[in-house]
Every structure is written in C-alpha cells, then in structure tokens.
C-alpha cells in the first residue's frame, strides 16, 4: 500500500538515508515492503506508528548496501563484521561457524542475477530489528539448519567399530524400564496439556538451557516471574503425572517407584535409547551433554 509522501520524507530524513544516497522512491519501497510484510496499515495512524518504530537508519543502510553503494558497504562491513564473527564464535567456539558468517557476505551482496537484477539477502530485512540482530538471526538459522542436517546424515557406528557402544553387562530390570516408560508417557501428556507460553518457557529453560533472565527477556517478563512460573508449571506437571499414573491403575507404592526409577538413574539418559537396550540394542552414551 502506498505511503503518504510527507511521511516518507520525514522517515527518510529520520533515517539519514541521504548519507548513503538512497533514492527516496527506493526507501519508500522498502517501507512499503516492511508494512506489507507485517500487514500493518489498516489505519493510517497504525501505519505511521509502525513505520516510525522501525530501525530506520539500518533500513536505509540495508537499502544502500542492496543497491551496491560502496561507502555503505564499507560502513556495513566495518560495523557488523566484528559482531558477526563474535556471534559465529559464540555459536561454535571451534570456529566452525565462521565459514557460515563469511558465506553470508556473498548472499548479502547478491551474486545471483535474476532477470538481470542482483538479488540481495538484504531484501528480507524489514527494519523490525536492528541489522545486528537480524544478521545474528540469519547466522543462527544457518547454523541450526546445518547442525540438524549433519545430525540426520551422521551414520550409526558400525557394530564392530570401536565407537560401537557395548551391550550392558548387568541384567536389565524390566520393571524399572516399564516405570520409566510410564512416567515418560505421562510427562509427555502433561506437557502437551500446558498452554503454549508455559511450554515455551520450559523449552527455553530446559531444552535450550537459557538463563532465567534470557527466558524472561524472550517472554517479555521479569526473570523472577519466569522463575515463579517455572515452579508453578513444574508443580502442575507433577500433579498431572501423579494423577495419570493413579488413573492408569498404579498403587501409591508403584507411583513412588516410578519417580524413584528416574532419580535412581546415574546420569542423563535418552529414554528411547534406554528402552532400546531392553530390546537388545545398544546402550546410549552415558552423557549426551558433554
């Protein structure tokens, strides 16, 4: 949807877009693309609020870089590369993410020609975040996708290789595995019953190991609130698990054994793999986190 010319001019000045010699019409297109992406602008007041809240200077810089302005590129590289490299090192301290960071530059510059036009990755930047955060997000996305792809491609160790894990030497306790499986199933159901926001909080804290402060920031709440909510959610899960186990027909003693089966375990475990051991397969690695 076209944006009022006066508003474009004001935002253009606000963005200092003339510094990079961004044509006004190009900047207006970027604003329109951003508003269209967000589906903002049902009312003109709402549209203006949305556009004014954008990271306009970064949007102007992105426009200039997408157009191949040399001084804008120089500024962008000088300003963003240290952040990008440090983000890459934070993602993979072994340096494995640096190549991802480097490869981003080619895409940002837009080497691929489509109908004679350079298509830059910058066209996906709409100014709703800072350029730094956007670059981190692009890098994080690439990194995660590569990890997930590699994980899928990882071959299982050969039975005879030294990597193959030995079969358990101690006799398997089928009753304990039954309890583990029961409590795992009930936990899964209990988590599924939670509101999405509670599940997200659990995922941030337990799966991604974010701090309470980071979790809180993501959810727009104070870390103390995150802490309280996590405690509340854990209580709710436990109550639900206990209720389900009783409904399943377990006695109080058996319910207690279910919980004990978890706490007796010596280390982090992947229940599925542990259960596979019971069916004659290999034991999981004792410590998945290291």
């Amino acid at each position, binding site marked *: 949807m076209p944006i009022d010319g006066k508003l474009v001019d004001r935002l253009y000045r606000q963005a200092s877009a003339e510094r990079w010699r961004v044509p006004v019409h190009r900047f207006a297109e970027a604003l329109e693309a951003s508003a269209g992406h967000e589906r903002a602008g049902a009312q003109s007041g709402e549209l203006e609020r949305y556009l004014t809240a954008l990271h306009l200077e970064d949007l102007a810089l992105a426009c200039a870089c997408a157009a191949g302005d040399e001084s804008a590129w120089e500024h962008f590289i000088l300003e963003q590369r240290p952040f990008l490299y440090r983000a890459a090192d934070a993602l993979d*301290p072994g340096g494995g993410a640096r190549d991802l960071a480097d490869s981003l530059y080619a895409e940002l510059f837009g080497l691929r020609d489509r109908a004679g036009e350079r298509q830059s990755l910058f066209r996906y930047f*709409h100014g709703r975040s800072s350029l730094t955060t956007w670059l981190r*997000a*692009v890098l994080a*996305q690439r990194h995660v996708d590569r990890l997930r792809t590699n994980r899928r491609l990882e071959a299982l160790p050969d039975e005879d290789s030294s990597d193959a894990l030995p079969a358990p030497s101690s006799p398997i306790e089928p009753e304990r595995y039954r309890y583990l499986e029961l409590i795992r199933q009930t936990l899964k159901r209990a988590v599924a019953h939670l509101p999405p926001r509670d599940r997200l909080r659990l995922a941030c804290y337990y799966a991604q190991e974010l701090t309470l402060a980071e979790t809180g920031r993501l959810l727009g709440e104070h870390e103390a609130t995150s802490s309280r909510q996590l405690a509340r959610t854990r209580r709710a899960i436990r109550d639900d698990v206990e209720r389900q186990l009783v409904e399943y027909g377990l006695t109080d003693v058996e319910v207690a054994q279910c919980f004990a089966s978890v706490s007796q375990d010596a280390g982090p475990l992947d229940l599925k793999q542990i259960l596979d051991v019971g069916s004659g397969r290999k034991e999981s690695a004792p410590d998945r*986190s290291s």
Partner: protein
Amino acid sequence: MDTSRERDQSIERLLRQSLQTPRPDGATDSCLDAETLAAWIDGGLSGAALEMAQTHVADCARCQSMVGAMARTNAVVAQPEPERGLRPWLPWLVPLTAAAAAVVLWVAVPGDLSTPQRPAEEVQTQTAKTNAQQPASLGNQPQASAARTETGAASSADKKAETQAVAPELRKEIGRLEADRLQRQDAAAAPAVALRSAPAAATPPAAVAAEASAPAAAAPPAAPTAEGARLARSANGVVGTITGANQIVSPNPSIRWRIAGSVVEHSTDGGSSWAAVPTGIAAELTAGAAPSTLVCWLVGRGGVVLLTTDGRTWRRVAFPEITDLSAVRATDARTASVSTADGRILTTSDGGVTWERR
C-alpha cells in the same frame, strides 16, 4: 526415599532429559524466518504476531534451537565495539570519564599493597556495597568530579565530536590501566599465596577496596573495564577467583581464562590475546577458579563442572545433582568447593570422584 522434594527433582530431571532429546522435525511454512526472529528478540513483535511466534516455537524444535542460538550470541552485542555511531556512546561518556579518572587516581596513589587481602566473598561484598553507593563514592573523588563538570560544560556539538575522538582512546587507556592494576595486585598478592598459613586477613585499606570497585561501579556494564578480573586469595591461602568479569586469573596473571555463555577462552599474555578452547559443553558457565597455571575449574548450569589440568583440554567432572552452580573455589586439581545457586556447598577432595555436602 520418596519425598515431595525428590519427586520434584525427578520431574525436573525428566523435563531436562525429554526436552533436550533431539527431535527430528524439520522446517515448516510456519517456522519463524530470521527477520521475524530478530524482530521478536528486539521487541519488534506485538499482539497477534508475537502470540503466533510464541505458539509456534513452543512446539517446534528447530525454532527452539534458533532461539537458543540467538541467546548464546546475546553476549556478543553486549560487548563493546565496533564504532557504532555517536549516540550509543553519549550516555556512557560521563561514567567512562569518571572511571578513567578513578583508575588514574588509583594508579597514581597505590595503596598499601603488602596488606593481605580479604577472602573472595568479602571483597565481593565490599564491591557490591560500593556499587550501591556509586554516586556518593564518585562524588568524593575530585578527579571524577572535575571530569564530570568539564564534560557537562561542553556544548552538545562539542560533546559529540569529543566523544567520537576520545571514546576509542579512552577505552584503550582504561583497558591498559586495568591490566596494569591487575599486575600490581597480583604481584602484591603473590607472597600471600606462598604462605598458606598466613594469619587471618586484616581489613584492607579502604582506598584499595574503593579502588577495586570504583572502575566497575563507574563504568558502563559492557565497557572494556568490566574485563578486569579480581584475583582474591583467602586468609588460609586457598586460591579463589572472583570472576567479576568472567575472567579467571591463575596465580601467574599472564595465564588466565575467561567465560562467556558456554564459550571458554584462554590467554597466556595477561589478556592481550585470547584463544577459544573447546569444552564440548553447551551449558552456560557461571564461574571458575584457577589454583595454578595449568589447573582450572569451571562450573555452570545444570550441574556442569569442568576441569583442566593442562590449561587447554577440559573434562567434565561428574556432579551428583542437576542444579545450577554459581561459584567454585579450588586449591588444586583434587580439592574444590562448589556452591549451588540455592546456596548449598559441595566439596570434593578427589578430583570430583566423590562429593560431600558441607
């Protein structure tokens, strides 16, 4: 053995295990794109868009990983550099100038360095107290005061130009002074390390305590001065490290480690250059202690305890609980005390093979 607390621990353990198990689901149309994720992180999502994003991520392993990856790189933006225009620097100009003045004052007038220092906990407490009194303590320093007045007198345009010109130099200078300060402090503290049966620590001169805290109190949270770590030695000679800025300094100040999130870096030149050291751990590390130049203990969230005995390769030490760890003190590669986030202390005297609650 089936107490309510144990059941809670079982639930927590199960949650950690089941939620951390890799799930194979791939990208879908509703997965967050990088722009939306970035907008969320920067507070650019609201209303239905935010709710939609949260609902999706709650059940999408891929997007959860992306959110986690973003969080791991958060520290990157908290660090200073590069030259990011003028405006972000302006709010820090006054405290930076004051910090520089405070450091200069301290370097120029060193305290009684032969006085034994307090145990780590006491120094931390003192630092916290001084931090709380920041305006008053700064106000008592003529140089800081003068700097503030001088800065305040400058016109807005002058300030802008001055900031641009001074900020990088100021940062370098503060870093250099802080490094000097650390070396002096370490040199002065060395005899105390050698004498394990040293008498109980006396109260350090007020000036030293104030100096130790002044730069940190005055500097912005992410300023380079925050990199200054304070090495503390307790009365009985046990070496501990205050990781005020996540630096763990060994008895030889040239050798040190620093942690940021799950990243560990090692320096052999007093912090001038750093090399990343792989640990294989994704959990956030929170504290460390380096009783020698080769031995360093690190602790982190979820019961993570790491130990190196050659300075570079790390092994995970088994810890009896999955709980967040907040501090560690160590005398060598066998003996260490670890504090949990809820205030308990566990000690080992066999390199982590067994742990005892104290």
